[in-house]
């Protein structure tokens, strides 16, 4: 029975988060378009893109490491789906112990997958992109984890559901100074995880022509795209649960979700792309500093 339950949880996670993620991806495209005086695609555009990509021919480069080239998108999909399932389990079922740490580890895998995908392509531009992705990973991971420490300090627990419960009695984390700073820091770091502007160095199309994804086509590309969409929805849901009090009231929950999403889209559309060295300086400098400040405030009880 136990196994069946976990299995159904993973299936549910896949469908829920990919649906929400694809729609979030559409909202991203639509709002971006409206900000740029364009009309933007209809709501089913991302579904159509996905289906079309699935039907396209898969071309594997002659010099690619074939097994790794094809495996990495699948690993990515599995990783984000399990991440989503972990999030669902911490809300609905008996929670896994230490789930915050597992969550952080799992959230790391999509970036690693992008690195693997790039480095197994056998393309110069892809390997430049892979190198950039790794540097990006090193930059944002530090402030991200520091920022996530703040709710842990406040609630004294490393389980996501306890942190969510703590916010019912003590007010949402984002309402405190420390929580707010941590939220901003974590959101900016998450922007890097998503590979959105200003941190889209690994696929910068006008520099290295889609970089890590340059050789992908057909079904593997569809999977990589789906991975990014699921990561988007899982990440935002995590932010809502972790910092903003969760989905206890579905209506305000959806509003919170949309607010975070729109914030991400606005950051994406009002910045140019940074260089990798600038990202490293920014992350290990400003972001980490503010992260530490948030931790300090949290320890002082603000």
């Amino acid at each position, binding site marked *: 029975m136990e196994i069946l339950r976990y299995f159904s949880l993973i299936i549910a996670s896949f469908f829920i988060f990919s649906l929400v993620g694809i729609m979030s991806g559409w909202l991203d495209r639509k709002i971006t378009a409206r900000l740029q005086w364009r009309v933007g695609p209809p709501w089913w555009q991302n579904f159509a893109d996905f289906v079309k990509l699935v039907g396209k021919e898969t071309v594997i480069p002659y010099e690619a490491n074939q097994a790794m080239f094809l495996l990495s998108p699948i690993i990515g999909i599995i990783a984000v789906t399990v991440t989503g399932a972990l999030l669902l389990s911490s809300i609905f079922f008996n929670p896994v112990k230490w789930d915050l740490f597992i969550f952080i580890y799992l959230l790391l895998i999509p970036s690693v997958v992008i690195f693997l995908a790039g480095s197994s392509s056998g393309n110069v*531009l892809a390997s*430049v992109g892979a190198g950039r992705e790794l540097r990006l990973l090193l930059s944002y991971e530090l402030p991200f984890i520091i920022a996530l420490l703040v709710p842990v300090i406040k609630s004294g627990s490393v389980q996501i559901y306890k942190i969510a419960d703590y916010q019912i009695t003590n007010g949402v984390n984002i309402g405190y100074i420390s929580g707010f700073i941590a939220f901003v820091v974590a959101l900016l770091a998450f922007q890097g995880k998503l590979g959105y*502007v200003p941190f*889209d160095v690994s696929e910068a199309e*006008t520099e290295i022509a889609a970089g890590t994804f340059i050789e992908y086509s057909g079904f593997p590309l569809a999977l990589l795209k789906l991975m990014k969409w699921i990561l988007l929805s899982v990440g935002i849901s995590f932010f809502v649960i972790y910092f903003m009090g969760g989905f206890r009231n579905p209506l305000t929950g959806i509003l919170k979700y949309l607010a975070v999403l729109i914030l991400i889209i606005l950051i994406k559309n009002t910045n*140019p*792309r940074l260089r*990798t060295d600038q990202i490293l300086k920014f992350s290990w400098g400003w972001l980490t500093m503010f992260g530490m400040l948030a931790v300090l405030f949290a320890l002082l009880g603000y």
Partner: protein
Amino acid sequence: MKKVVVPLGPYHPLFEEPEYFELYCDGETVVDIEWKAGYNHRGIEKLSESKHWDQVTFLVERICGICSTSHPIAYCNAVEDLLKIDIPERAKYIRSIIGELERLHSHLLWVGLAGHFLGYNTVFMWAWKYREPILDIMEMITGNRNHYAMMKIGGVRRDIDNGDIDIIKKILGELKPKLEMLTGSVIDDPVLAARLKGVGVLTAQDIKDYGAVGPIARASGVDIDVRRDSPHAAYDLVEWKVITCQDGDVFSKAVVRLLECFESIKIIEQCLERLKKVKGEIAIEIREIPPGEGIGHYEAPRGECFHYVRSDGSSRPVRHKIRAPSYVNIPTFKTSCVGETIADVTIILAGVDPCYCCTERAITVYDANTRKKLFNGRDLITLSQEKTKKLKKRLGIKDE
């Protein structure tokens, strides 16, 4: 040291045209750059020798879609220099109006593209949105959004209706605050400044060494502008100033271009005001072109555009030499790109606002000792076929 070759091109999202740059990289740092041209060669100079004088105006207009009135103005200047004539005053104003409208749209186009190359697509779309009314004006007064066909040896081909002047002024008046907002948002953006300041610096000495022209030279503090230095059209009849910056980085190039837009609006507004008063012909009728030679310049949006024509008294030019601004601007990459990262190199390449179709030349390979041509067209095709065969063999593809 092992170097990795990162190819930019021949087809790459960075370029609007087929173009090939080889970046020799050590990690992400570019240690050398190689430019390979020839993908777009159309033999315009040779074609021009087979057209008669009036047709060439339309031919040179098609050298480049963006600065499509710069070449005709420079060509007409060259032929008028040969003829030793002065065009009617009304034609002078109309030439300047068309030229400056083109500069406006070209600079806005560059700002948009530069934003796109930096991943700042909002600037891209907004700049192009603001460029749209200028194209509308063009359509209103010339009939085309591009390739205006306004220039003619001895004057201009179409008159601007005095009734249109107020509408044009109104559209330009509406454009001004938008342009100010765009300029402000580009100059004050801290992230853009972090990306562009101190990147791809060309000193005034570099500019002089390479003979670079246009906004690139002016961004490095070299105060040259053909419109002022060898006046033609109406540029000596109206008030305006040459914009210069001192730093020579990509940021200065952007600032120079954005501020030049305001100067262009100033020139157009003055010209329109004068047009209301100046009456008379818009062109002198030219019957025949006597033997002789002439040169003409024009300050295209990218710098000095130079045309040379020679006539033997027949109906066609016997020699027509064109030197587009990008031809001297592109070699500066050797100085500005080496030592920068790939991310910066892309914006440095774009910062010159290179126009490859203006620049393309055919390449002939000579033996250094005997001065004999090594390859003709036939040889190159044979070489290409052999390479294809080799590749097919390596990949195990059978011939059909």
